[in-house]
């Protein structure tokens, strides 16, 4: 815990908040343009946060007050700590030697869990329904997420000996596309599709925003939050979206720009930073922007079935293709020349 580490960590967290909020603004703008509206300015989320910070912070009489007030802080701090363990902007994570992918998976779980606990503690029926839906949704997609992470880790464990497979070290991790044959490429593509399908649920966006469905259950788990608490949860939602996009980029596109073009090493971090932003934007564009502009909300049972049956099956096929590629791929390719 040197002072330099603390300064770096603090700067990184502020940067993550800023990028997450701006990406949220970009999302609102892009979705508005798709619906042929003009849309809010890109800095709108930052204005919203400023406004929420000056609003009155109401704690309902029926709420369990300490849980209700603690959970927004738990949610935002875990969403921020996540960025200390996952490679960010083409640089290695600050705590790359302390954490691994399993820890990162758990850190991804805590913010929605904290939101659900806060919802239960707020003593409102709407918030309870929203929290229940959040938990059901989480149980449905965590299966898929675990399958994706373990499939890729298995792939590394058999193809790259001596590599710590759960490591979050960027240098130790080759791009998964480069170490498989044609079958494996299709398998990784299926895994990528499933992870993009998990994205809207992780981000709480349409068509999986039933936990905060504002037209039917009054913003769900957020229903009783106002002022500072709401501002924290608002930032947390933006960080969750950005964080999961960072995670997908790390799993599937870990390569940096210097692997494609040569650059002056002095400017390389800047180019890597923008290359990283481009990758995150591409992931979010495919999985959140387009999807939330053209879909309506699922019912919770439909969403749960969608993840447990459809998406989970697709991810298992992806794993199967990876296994086929490794064990009998060579013989099959020889057979077909």
């Amino acid at each position: 815990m040197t002072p330099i580490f603390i300064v770096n960590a603090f700067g990184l967290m502020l940067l993550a908040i800023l990028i997450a909020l701006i990406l949220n603004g970009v999302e609102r703008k892009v979705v508005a343009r798709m619906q042929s509206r003009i849309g809010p300015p890109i800095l709108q989320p930052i204005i919203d946060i400023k406004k929420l910070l000056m609003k009155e912070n109401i704690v309902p009489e029926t709420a369990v007050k300490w849980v209700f007030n603690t959970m927004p802080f738990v949610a935002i701090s875990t969403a921020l700590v996540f960025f200390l363990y996952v490679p960010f902007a083409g640089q290695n994570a600050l705590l790359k030697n302390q954490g691994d992918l399993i820890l990162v998976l758990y850190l991804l779980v805590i913010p929605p869990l904290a939101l659900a606990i806060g919802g239960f503690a707020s003593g409102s029926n709407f918030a309870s329904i929203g929290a229940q839906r959040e938990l059901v949704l989480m149980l449905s997609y965590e299966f898929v997420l675990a399958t994706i992470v373990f499939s890729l880790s298995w792939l590394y464990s058999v193809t790259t000996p001596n590599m710590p497979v759960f490591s979050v070290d960027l240098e130790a991790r080759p791009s998964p596309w480069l170490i498989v044959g044609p079958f494996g490429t299709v398998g990784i593509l299926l895994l990528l599709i499933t992870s993009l399908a998990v994205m809207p649920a992780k981000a709480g966006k349409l068509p999986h925003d039933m936990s905060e469905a504002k037209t039917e259950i009054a913003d769900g788990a957020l229903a009783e939050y106002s002022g500072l608490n709401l501002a924290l949860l608002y930032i947390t939602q933006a960080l969750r979206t950005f964080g999961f996009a960072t995670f997908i980029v790390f799993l599937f596109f870990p390569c940096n720009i210097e692997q494609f073009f040569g650059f002056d090493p002095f400017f390389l971090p800047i180019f890597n930073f923008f290359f990283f932003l481009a990758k995150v934007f591409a992931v979010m564009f495919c999985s959140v922007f387009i999807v939330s502009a053209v879909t309506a909300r699922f019912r919770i049972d439909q969403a749960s079935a969608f993840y447990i049956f459809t998406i989970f099956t697709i991810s298992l096929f992806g794993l199967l293709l990876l296994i086929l590629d490794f064990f009998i791929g060579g013989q099959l390719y020889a057979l077909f020349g």
Partner: protein
Amino acid sequence: MGIDALKRSLWVFHVNAGSCNGCDIEIVAALTPRYDVERFGIKLVGTPRHADVLLVTGPVTRQMKDKLLRVYEQTPEPKLVVVVGNCGSTCGVFYESYNIEGPVDKLIPVDVYVHGCPPRPEAIIEGIAKAWAKLEKTKVKK
């Protein structure tokens, strides 16, 4: 920081206090691509806890009186109340009806009245803008 942020970010909660749905449709029309209030940062929210502005439509029926008062108290400060439509302003055609407890300003303090039956979406947007201007004046006084 402070009240200036409200100018570009007004979150609106819509209370239907016995309206015929005419005004409600016009409020929704203000969100459509033609009027697009989101470009001014105005957003319809699902709960009074998130709201800065209460849009009240309808003469207040006896059943809705308690609910309207409760929603008003649930809204965090600073807050504004905009009445949309003739019914909320004067009770309109329901004036002196046996089951009416309104108009709205008999129960809660109202900042801006938007007239019309129903008012046009432009009028509703102007009403919200005027409500914000009023909030700014109170800040100067303090």
